[in-house]
């Protein structure tokens, strides 16, 4: 094997942080020193046997590093994801070996598919016990290989500074992703001569971003300039690339209508005149239908997920496709690109903006508005203004928009409430919509909201969660109780696993198989955790309750009873083309 020590020989630019003189420190202290050098402020974690030396070292770092003791490692990693998504920084997690490490797997898979930068440090049994089925030993490196961008097992403390430097560099650069570093207990305890921390800025086998090929940009500009009905699709790449401003300039100069994937939501203000709405299965009518009418499709930082494209062989076949992405493996993966623009959109977008003509497409935009009107009439208005006593999810979100002016961070779980929130929430600024997109992880919402609050302490963070998802990670109310994250929790309770029920209704002859989930008394549960709470059963209580929640200084829980069998529409049924979207 070669170790990182050997890799050291490879050219690495480095800025020495500490003087060349060495001091003797333990591997555990080296981990914490690395965090401080990387600007880490908050760690989400849970101690255990194999990570105790690191926790022991942490005892002396209380003033420099804030550690949030979660109630379950899955909660810890989702919190770190929420933190990374609102702060734009790398989320950091501690977990112990064995069950502690395996509890991270769902969060790693979620962060992998949603490109969230994380560094997870897990404890591991002593190196001499590896492979002996020791207590709380599990092969975490092999378990996590498919769900990490990079992982590495440290058995010698001298490796720790270089390995952590690589970990932070890999997690945050290029297309971000989760990195896991497994450190055996002996390496945590081992003292070694520490010469300071050097940030990693180059790994020879790793190219986070390419030099941009201008000929493709010229081709792209030519296509855009001659287009009659161009259409922009944008994804999280705009947010991850911190290219919101560049994207807005591109949209405004080009005059092209732009629609978002759920992870791209909030990259462009929702009320921007060229923001035509949401793509995909529960997206807006116009963006879906007109995908199959546009002549040039410009995809920015998105990966043509099947929930966005519907049936692939009937997806935008008429269009020339320009695909901007930092990950070359995404180009041509699902949709063949006519012009591939491989690069960081923070760089490619301004170059493209320079090359295109200032234009407007009034007739083309009017088409989106026509579809919008139909959708408004058939779906949106009735959903927001139900004509019976039953409250709808949409009216709750609509009222929230009014009360928060679109300035809140909205964190959602997975299911009907997620689709409704993404459809109707208003956003003025980026990094405001935090949701589990690719993996669809129920239980993501509550812990992610806790992390989101730490990542954006000055903003209002509202967690919208269903009655199914809340029960998957409800123990994190304990984290809120202990550390006081001022998260506003709204449970939209329809007394069903609503999205599965909707599919059973539409595609399985209404055979409701194990979707009628019951709930505890959430107000009592919240009060048990010393979190104030209310249950809202009637519309006339709603505004007051939401105001109470928002005005309260601290965490608050609202359970809102909504229609039991409401469906989310429009909908592109699975296996159908985007142009076959149903309004009811």
């Amino acid at each position, binding site marked *: 094997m070669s170790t990182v020590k050997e*890799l050291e020989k490879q050219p690495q630019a480095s800025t020495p942080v500490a003087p060349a003189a060495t001091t003797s420190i333990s591997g555990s202290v080296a981990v914490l020193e690395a965090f401080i050098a990387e600007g880490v402020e908050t760690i989400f974690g849970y101690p255990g046997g194999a990570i105790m030396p690191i926790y022991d070292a942490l005892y002396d770092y209380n003033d420099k590093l804030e550690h949030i003791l979660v109630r379950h490692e899955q909660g810890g990693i989702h919190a770190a994801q929420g933190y990374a998504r609102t702060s734009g920084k790398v989320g950091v997690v501690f977990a112990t070996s064995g069950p502690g490490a395996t509890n991270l797997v769902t969060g790693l898979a979620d962060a992998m598919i949603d490109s969230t930068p994380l560094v997870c440090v897990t404890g591991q049994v002593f190196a001499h016990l590896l492979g002996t089925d020791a207590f709380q030993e599990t092969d975490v490196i092999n378990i996590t*290989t498919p769900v990490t961008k990079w992982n590495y097992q440290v058995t010698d403390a001298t490796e720790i500074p270089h390995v952590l430097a690589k970990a932070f560099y890999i997690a945050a650069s290029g297309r971000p992703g989760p990195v896991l570093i497994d450190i055996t207990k002996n390496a945590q305890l081992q003292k070694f001569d520490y010469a300071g921390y050097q940030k990693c800025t180059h790994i020879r*086998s790793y190219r986070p971003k390419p*030099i941009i090929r201008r000929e493709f940009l010229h081709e792209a500009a030519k296509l855009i300039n001659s287009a009659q009905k161009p259409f922009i699709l944008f994804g999280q790449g705009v947010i991850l690339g911190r290219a919101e401003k560049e994207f807005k300039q591109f949209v405004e100069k080009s005059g092209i209508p732009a629609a978002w994937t759920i992870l791209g939501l909030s990259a462009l203000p929702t009320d921007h005149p060229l923001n035509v709405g949401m793509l995909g299965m529960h997206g807006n009518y116009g963006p879906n239908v007109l995908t199959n009418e546009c002549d040039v499709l410009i995809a920015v930082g998105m990966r043509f997920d099947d929930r966005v494209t519907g049936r692939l062989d009937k997806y935008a076949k008429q269009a020339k496709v320009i695909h901007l992405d930092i990950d*070359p493996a995404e180009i041509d993966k699902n949709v063949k690109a006519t012009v591939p623009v491989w690069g960081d959109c923070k760089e490619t977008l301004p170059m493209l903006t320079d090359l295109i003509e200032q234009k407007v497409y009034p007739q083309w935009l009017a088409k989106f508005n026509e579809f919008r009107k139909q959708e408004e009439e058939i779906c949106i208005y009735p959903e927001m203004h139900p004509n019976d006593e039953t409250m709808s999810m949409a009216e709750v979100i609509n009222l929230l928009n009014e009360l928060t002016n679109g300035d809140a961070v909205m964190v959602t779980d997975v299911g009907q409430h997620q689709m409704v929130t993404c459809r109707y929430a208003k956003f003025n600024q980026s990094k405001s919509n935090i949701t589990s997109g690719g993996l669809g992880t129920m239980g993501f919402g509550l812990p992610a909201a806790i992390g989101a609050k730490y990542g954006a302490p000055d903003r209002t963070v509202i967690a919208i969660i269903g009655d199914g998802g809340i029960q998957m990670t409800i123990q994190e109310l304990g984290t809120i109780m202990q550390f006081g994250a001022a998260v506003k929790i709204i449970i939209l309770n329809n007394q069903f696993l609503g999205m599965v029920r909707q599919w059973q209704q539409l595609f399985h002859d209404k055979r409701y198989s194990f979707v009628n989930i019951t709930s505890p008394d959430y107000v009592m549960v919240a009060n048990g955790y010393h979190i104030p709470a209310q249950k809202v059963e009637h519309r006339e209580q709603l505004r007051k309750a939401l105001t109470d929640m928002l005005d309260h200084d601290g965490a608050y829980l609202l359970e809102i009873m909504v229609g039991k069998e409401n469906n989310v529409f429009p909908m592109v049924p699975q296996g159908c083309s985007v142009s076959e979207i149903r309004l009811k």
Partner: protein
Amino acid sequence: MTKQEYTLTVYTENQIGLLTRIAIIFSRRKINVESLNTSPSEIENIHRFNIVINETEEVVKKLCRQIEKQVEVLKAYYSSNDEIIWQELALYKVPTQEVAEKMQVERLLRQYGARAVVIRSDYTVFEATGHREETDKILEILGPYGLIEFVRSARVAIIKKSKGFHEKLQQFEERQPGEEVIENEYLGDKSASSVFSM
């Protein structure tokens, strides 16, 4: 597009766990690996994987991109059989008496290029290198004479057009590499026609 045999040549760092990272790219997509060989390359500390799969070119291209996405992979190339020189090695253990008495050993050696590695009174080990059909043919011949053991190695392949990886590695090591390093030959029609362009 029809499926055909492709040989992937992957240049990597020498890192524990990388074999798993590469192997699961195939298994996740339920693609059978026909043959896999890891070995040193022309450059010290750089490893070279040869992987043979039966797939369409489109799938193979996408696989190469997924492989290159791994942090410790420098480069992944794919070649059809006419673009490479390749060999496999096979060993055959047969009972000496049976073979000496009943078989035309000379023909085996001369016509099929086999070599005797070990000759003992109880058994003899023949070795042959070549393409699959050639080593298979010998297997067919020896079969009736009480073949005791048979084993065949993975394919090792040399890319006809390759000029080696030395220059490319130097470019990889540069912090601000030239445009030619960064270009991905699988992207777009403008890419260089040469298989081995970087």
